[in-house]
């Protein structure tokens, strides 16, 4: 059984606390991988001073649960932790945290990467950037869609 923790919140998160949760009473895992996403000052060629994260409240956690469930069926994971922030954020703020733990590093790396790739394509969040020239919705990138292909190819083997 994979222990899953999923949160969608306006508050910031503490990576040290999240890491402590992954290690707590955990003597079976040899590998923890985490990803942390931050607000960049430059995005798609625009200077950015902040961004607003809108979401679809009743769908967001359900969508993240579904992605975590897929990862837990595909790799032998002890923990999955996903936190995504919503609301107003500034440059360098933390946006998203994904961590997985497993006996071995291949499962931990692949599952963390898989969750981020699917989150980018399927979780109902939208970013509106505060740019020097005015507020603008961020355009979805084709590369995020093609990022899913690597997981589908592997699934067919």
């Amino acid at each position, binding site marked *: 059984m994979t222990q899953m923790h999923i949160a969608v919140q306006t508050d910031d998160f503490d990576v040290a606390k999240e890491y402590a949760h992954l290690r707590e009473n955990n003597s079976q895992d040899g590998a923890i991988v985490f990803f942390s996403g931050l607000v960049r000052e430059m995005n798609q060629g625009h200077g950015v001073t902040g961004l607003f994260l809108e979401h679809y409240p009743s769908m967001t956690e359900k969508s993240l649960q579904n992605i975590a469930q897929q990862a837990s069926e595909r790799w032998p994971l002890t923990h999955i932790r996903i936190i995504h922030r919503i609301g107003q954020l500034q440059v360098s703020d933390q946006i998203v945290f994904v961590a997985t733990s497993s006996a071995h590093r291949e499962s931990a790396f692949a599952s963390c990467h898989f969750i981020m790739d699917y989150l*980018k*394509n399927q979780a109902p969040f939208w970013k509106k950037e505060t740019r020097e020239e005015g507020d603008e919705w961020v355009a979805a990138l084709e590369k995020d869609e093609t990022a899913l292909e690597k997981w589908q190819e592997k699934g067919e083997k």
Partner: protein
Amino acid sequence: MIKVLFFAQLKELLQCSQIELSINAPCDVDSLKQQIVNEHPNWQAHLNQNKVLAAVNQTMVDATHLINDGDEVAFFPPVTGG
């Protein structure tokens, strides 16, 4: 009656976050869009954009998915979280 929600840029373009309407259930997502456009002709360009995504009861679906009375439908642009 069904509830239809709009999010992000689509919500701003339509200047509307939510409508309720009666449908001849079951109808598919494309037929629902057509019905909405009939009632709001100036939404046509925005709602019929290729990239607009649809969710029914908080799960992403394709254009042929059948909608039943009481469902919650949502239309929104490609997601950009993470």
